[in-house]
Structures are given as structure tokens and as C-alpha cells.
């Protein structure tokens, strides 16, 4: 039971209270770049969930069984980036093979996950917060879920905005920036949640 409650609080924290995009300001490039259409936002979200979960798993293993025993924790960043880059490459290949339409929709943003600070961020935070293996994997998964939630909310709003009447100067990115700010303010409200 204690384990379940721990997982639950982890999920609430990663998805809402410490949302990667709106509270930690990580992964902002795809947040603005891929949030024009609901389909591609969903695809991007799925890719990020997958990469974050995998990255959390592998980076935790590398940290615990390679870097700590050899006392070379200072290689954390480069080793993690190497791992994440390879993972993203793998995901890209798999998507290109199995879902060409999704591959086209994601376009340049898929390779961008390689250097996405959200992915590296979750890997480093797992270590910093001293999570155990299972928690680290779940934290990666929930962080991706939080990212996807925000991305999809944003895409939904922006799809509606396309049809809305507004001054010409506000169309496109300017209004997207304002919406992003409003969403961040709204998510600030979750900061009061405590368990």
C-alpha cells in the first residue's frame, strides 16, 4: 500500500505539480514547434513518453552499475546524452519503418528529441532525487505523460485559435506565447497539492 501511494504521489508530481514543460521549463522547443496539429502532437507525445521511459531505465542502470562502481560520475552528462541520442535514433528508425505518416508529421522534431533537455532532465533528476530503479522508470513514464498532456492541451487550443478571429498581429506565434503563459499560470495552481 505504501508503494502504491508513493507511485501515486510520483505521478501527481511529475504530471501536474512539477510538470516538465510548464513548471520546470524543459522541452519548450517541441512544445511550441509541434503543437500546431493534434495528430502530430499526439505522435510527438508518444515518442517522448517512449524515449523518456527508455532513457530513465538505461541511464539509471548505467549510473548505478557503471559510473558509481568505477567512481566516474562526472561522465554522467556525456554518457547520458550518448544513450539518449542512440535511443532516439532507434525510435526514429522504428517509426520510419512502421508509421511513415507519423514520421513525416514529426519531421525535424524527432531528431530534436536527441538534444531535448526534458529527456536529459528526467535522467539527471532521477539520479538527483535518489529514486530507485522502479521509481526511476515510472518517473520517466509520468514525466513523458505530463509532457504529452500539456502538448495535447496546447495543440487543441491552437487548432481552435486558427479559426478564431483576432488582430492580424496576434495571429500564429504571438497568441501561442500568451496561451503558453496562461497555461503555466494555471499549472502554478497545482503547486499547493501536498501528500
Amino acid at each position, binding site marked *: 500500500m505504501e508503494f502504491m501511494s508513493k507511485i501515486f504521489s510520483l505521478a501527481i508530481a511529475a504530471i501536474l505539480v512539477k510538470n516538465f514543460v510548464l513548471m520546470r521549463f524543459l522541452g519548450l522547443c517541441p512544445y511550441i514547434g509541434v503543437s500546431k496539429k493534434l495528430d502530430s502532437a499526439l505522435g510527438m507525445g508518444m515518442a517522448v513518453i517512449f524515449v523518456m521511459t527508455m532513457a530513465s531505465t538505461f541511464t539509471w542502470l548505467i549510473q548505478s552499475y557503471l559510473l558509481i562502481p568505477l567512481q566516474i560520475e562526472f561522465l554522467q552528462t556525456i554518457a547520458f546524452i*550518448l*544513450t539518449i541520442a542512440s535511443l532516439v*535514433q532507434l525510435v526514429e528508425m522504428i517509426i520510419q519503418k512502421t508509421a511513415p505518416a507519423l514520421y513525416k508529421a514529426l519531421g525535424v522534431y524527432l531528431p530534436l528529441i536527441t538534444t531535448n533537455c526534458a529527456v536529459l532532465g528526467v535522467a539527471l533528476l532521477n539520479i538527483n532525487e535518489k529514486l530507485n530503479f522502479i521509481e526511476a522508470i515510472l518517473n520517466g513514464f509520468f514525466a513523458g505523460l505530463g509532457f504529452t498532456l500539456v502538448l495535447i492541451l496546447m495543440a487543441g487550443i491552437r487548432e481552435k485559435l486558427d479559426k478564431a478571429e483576432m488582430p492580424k498581429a496576434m495571429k500564429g506565434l504571438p497568441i501561442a506565447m500568451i496561451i503558453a503563459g496562461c497555461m503555466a499560470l494555471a499549472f502554478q495552481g497545482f503547486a499547493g497539492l501536498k501528500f
Partner: protein
Amino acid sequence: MTIILYAIATLGVLGLFYGLGLAFASRKFHVEVDPKIELINEILPGANCGACGHPGCFAYAEAIAGKGEEINKCAPGGEKAVKQIAAIMGIKAASMEKKVAVIHCQSGGYNNTYFRYHYQGIPTCKAAVLVSEGPNLCSWGCLFQNDCIDACKFDAIHLDKNGMRIIDPQKCTACGACVKACPRHLIELVPYAKKVHILCTSHDKGAEARKRCGNNTACIGCGLCVKKCPVEAISMVEDLAVIDYQKCVSCGLCATVCPTLAIIDPLAGKRKKAVILEDKCIGCTVCAKKCPVQAISGEAKKIHKIDLDKCVGCEICYQVCPKAAIEMR
């Protein structure tokens, strides 16, 4: 010391492991790509100028191979690229008229422009044009901030000794980047074969236009060229003479009558006159029908004559004669 060795070994092993993993995955998840796309992409110039309407050369290659896009849209690649792509795609090459950019303004240098005020803002034409209709006295002419030169990816626009922009027709690929860059819309893509151009865009009336033009070569809207043109290719549009390049035969008659030298004719004095080779002429009357100035006379099945005083050297008869019986001398 051991730490360094550990570090090197760890990263080396990790890199090797990931590299092998990816190599294996690329085999397993290999996607067959249409080899035509690669071939076409190699032929395209790779300037990614966007003249074809696609976001880059590779996207255009994909569109040709995959979606049956027209193959004659690459301006920089020109005729040569069209033929090569046609060979790859196994279709007949659609012909493509070679074009060149022309700046319809002879002013624009520091030495031949009158100024309203001294402009000290952001050094682009787009910014300068916003400050009370631009710093130069002529509201239609060149702003001399070089947006066109910056836009040109082929180094085809240069400044002459007066600071005027000159397009090098040898280097110009007619990609249209400068046409889009010019906020005064001074640049137009015209057929390469047409040589006579009206280099003014001013719609100002007569004396006003002349007073404002630093080069003193404004079109004053007198209409002499319209009357002189043998093929009715020039029309007046709000006090500005405009050439219809579809009709123009580059005879240069308009340039001879223009009182302000707004019309340039690089071929002036170099034109040859048409002469009929009597042994080859069969009297088919094709040339007489096509002559824009009625300089050719002669009945059917008899040798024709060309009135050299009337001939303007447009070479139309030379091109249409089925028996190659006309020479330009």
C-alpha cells in the same frame, strides 16, 4: 590515472555498443527509398532557393518522383536539369523558357539619386520604405539598401561605379529571390531573349517624374514608344509605358524615340537586316505574313523582296522561313 582509463574505456565501450546496436537496427528496420529521389536530388543545384515552390531541392525531388510534380520548375537548374530529370523519369522534357531578372529603375546609386532626407535607420530596403515613403525623392524608385543583393544566392547583382545595381545576366538564374526581396517591386523576370527594357517604374506625371529621377531617365508617359511599336507590345499604364514581353520582338524602335532614355536597347546599332537568298526562296509568303512591319512584299510562288528601310531586324522572318532562305546581314 586509473580514473582516466576507466573513463576512456567506459565511453569507448558505450559508444561501440550503441554504434553496433544502431547498425544492427538500421539493417532490421531498413526502409526502401525510391532511388529516383536521390538521383534527381543530385541533379538539382542544391541552392534550396524555393523558386519551384517546394521547401528545398530534396522536397522538390521527392515531389517529382512521388507525386508527379512538373519537372520544369527549377529555375537555377534550367534547361539542362530538366533534360536530365526527364531522362531519369522517362518522360518527355517540357520546354522551359530561360528568363533573367531586370531591375526597372536606372537610379538608385549614391551619385544619381535625389534625397528627401538622410536615412540612418535599419539598413534594409524594407525598413527604409516605411519611413515617410522612403528616403529617395522618387516614390517608385530604388532605395539603395541592397535587399536584392542580399537575397541573391548566385552573386549575380553588383554595384556599378555610381552605386547602381546591375544584374549580371550570365550569373542570374531567374530564381526570383530578388523579385520577392524588393519592396518597391522594381524587379521582374523577363524572357532572356528579349533585350529591350523600359527601366522605369514611376507612375508620376511627365515633368514631375523627370524632376524626381536622379538619373534623369524617368518615363514621362509621353506615349511616343506606344505609337512607334510595330507590334503593339507597349501600353500606357497610369502614365508609365509597360512592355508586354509576349508580343515584343526586341526591334528597339521604342528606344530610338524615347526622349528621356528610359528605354534601353543594348542591341542598338548592332542589329542585322534580313536578306532573302534568291536561289532558295520558293515564294511561300510565310515571312511576309509574319513580318511585324510589313517590310516584305512579294506574290505567292515568286521571289520576295525585303524593304531594308522598313526592316527592323527582329529576325522573325529568319526564324519562320521553312527553306532557310533568309539571312541576317
